[in-house]
């Protein structure tokens, strides 16, 4: 037996050792490359996901469906109770609907009076969640829309109720949404009605904490949290959730989006606001609007005369 061992070592020892060395070099090289030039490797990762995940899709859809059916079936057992709850909620909702309709009309009237221009370009692409991050350490999902649908890194993703995360990593057919609960997620937010700016810091829990609040004593549980649009990360005014306090006294956010079951996500097209860079000239612009083929030199004089 001992002879066999040494025999096999003699046979392929150096070759195996060389192979091992090459493999280790490749792996550590890949890690260092990722550390140094992260965007390039992340793009490569997006391409790998783009190749692998859609090929799983034919199997994922039925398995997902089956599991969801089983879960739904379990909930049939308390269907009566649920029905009662839903009726009660529906009553409340009707009252709220009336209020909302009145407010909407009033809002439209006021906007009309003030001649306010809302951003008309905020449209969305809807995608289906194909896969999640697969590990308990990262919170992200993969959508079935990608570069060919015009998805761009950094756009906001919402479900019907609130903000879910931001696009980070776009492949040809898929894109990855890093959820607000991921430990690398930082979102600038505004807290209404006190109007304070803060930062929503993901920490791998269901209700992420809020950081950098100026006056924490002005917050009340139930305050609404919206995106602030600071830093041009997101369009301002997207609903995120409500302020709560955990037993330790830390301010957290109960997210409005239904994180238990993310199925369809809207990716908001956001082309960013145009920034005004030059301070503006005091004298009239060199080319006045409405003049056909103006001579730029004596344009102003001609108009004055």
């Amino acid at each position, binding site marked *: *037996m001992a002879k*066999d*061992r040494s*025999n*096999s070592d003699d*046979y392929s020892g150096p070759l*195996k050792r060389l*192979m*091992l060395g090459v*493999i*280790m070099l*490749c*792996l*550590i*090289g*890949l*890690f260092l490359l*990722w*550390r140094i030039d992260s965007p390039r*490797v992340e793009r*490569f*990762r997006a391409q*790998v*996901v783009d190749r*692998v*995940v859609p090929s*799983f899709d034919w*199997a*994922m859809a039925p*398995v*997902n469906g089956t*599991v969801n059916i089983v879960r739904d079936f379990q909930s049939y057992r308390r269907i009566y109770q649920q029905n009662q709850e839903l009726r009660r909620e529906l009553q409340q909702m009707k009252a709220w609907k009336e209020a909302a309709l009145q407010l909407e009309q009033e809002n439209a009237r006021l906007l009309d009076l003030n001649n306010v221009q809302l951003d008309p370009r905020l449209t969305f692409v809807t995608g289906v*969640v*194909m*896969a*999640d*991050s*697969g*590990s*308990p*350490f*990262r*919170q*992200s*999902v993969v959508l079935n829309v990608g570069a060919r649908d015009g998805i761009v890194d950094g756009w906001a993703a919402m479900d019907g109720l609130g903000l879910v995360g931001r696009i980070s990593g776009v492949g040809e057919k898929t894109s*990855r949404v890093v*959820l607000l*609960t991921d*430990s*690398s997620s930082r979102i600038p937010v505004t807290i209404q009605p006190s109007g304070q700016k803060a930062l929503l810091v993901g920490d*791998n*829990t*269901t209700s992420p904490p809020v950081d950098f609040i100026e006056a924490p004593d002005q917050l009340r549980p139930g305050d609404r949290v919206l995106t602030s649009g600071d830093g041009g990360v997101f369009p301002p005014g997207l609903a995120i959730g409500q302020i709560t306090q955990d037993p330790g006294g830390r301010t957290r956010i109960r997210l409005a989006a239904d*994180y*238990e*079951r*993310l199925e369809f996500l809207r990716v908001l097209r956001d082309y960013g606001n145009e920034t005004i860079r030059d301070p503006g000239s005091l004298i009239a612009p060199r080319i006045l609007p409405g003049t056909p083929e103006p001579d730029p030199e004596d344009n102003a004089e001609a108009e004055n005369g």
Partner: protein
Amino acid sequence: MAERTQSRLWLMRLIFVAVCLLIMFLHLLPLDTSPRSWAGPDLILALACAWVVRRPEFVPVTLIALVFVVTDLLYQMPPGLWAAFVVIGTETLRSRAPSLRDLTFPAEWFTVAVTLTLMTLGNQLTLALFLVDRPPLWLNLMQLVMTLVAYPLVAFGSQFLFGVRKQAPGDVDALANRR
């Protein structure tokens, strides 16, 4: 005879890849997208360790490196680092496999536990050194413990389902002939 062992060798390698793909697929299913406060076992790692200790030739180092680089990429981990640690760990186990062959299962389990613990700590340490976002330590340790708990199941499962046993002296002879 040699023909048969050769085809069996490649069949078992294929089975290893297929089982790993299946586990990855189950992990990627978007069933629960809210953050969990617990971590399940890393079954692919347990499988790789169990097979390396039993039949090293079924899981060559290239295959392990490939599988774990793919998991790194798919699971949003720093690419290459965990794969490198897994390669180091499995190579250590591989070099000990001949001596582990004669020992009992608890001894094997203990060796695997020590190796995996060192790998996990090394990974955390390297990530801290490179100032990368680390996974929460207690989640990582929980995953380690769960992997170790699952290890006997994986080991016996692969023994009964796929016939991955420790080599008996007769097998070694056949192998030596083949080579």
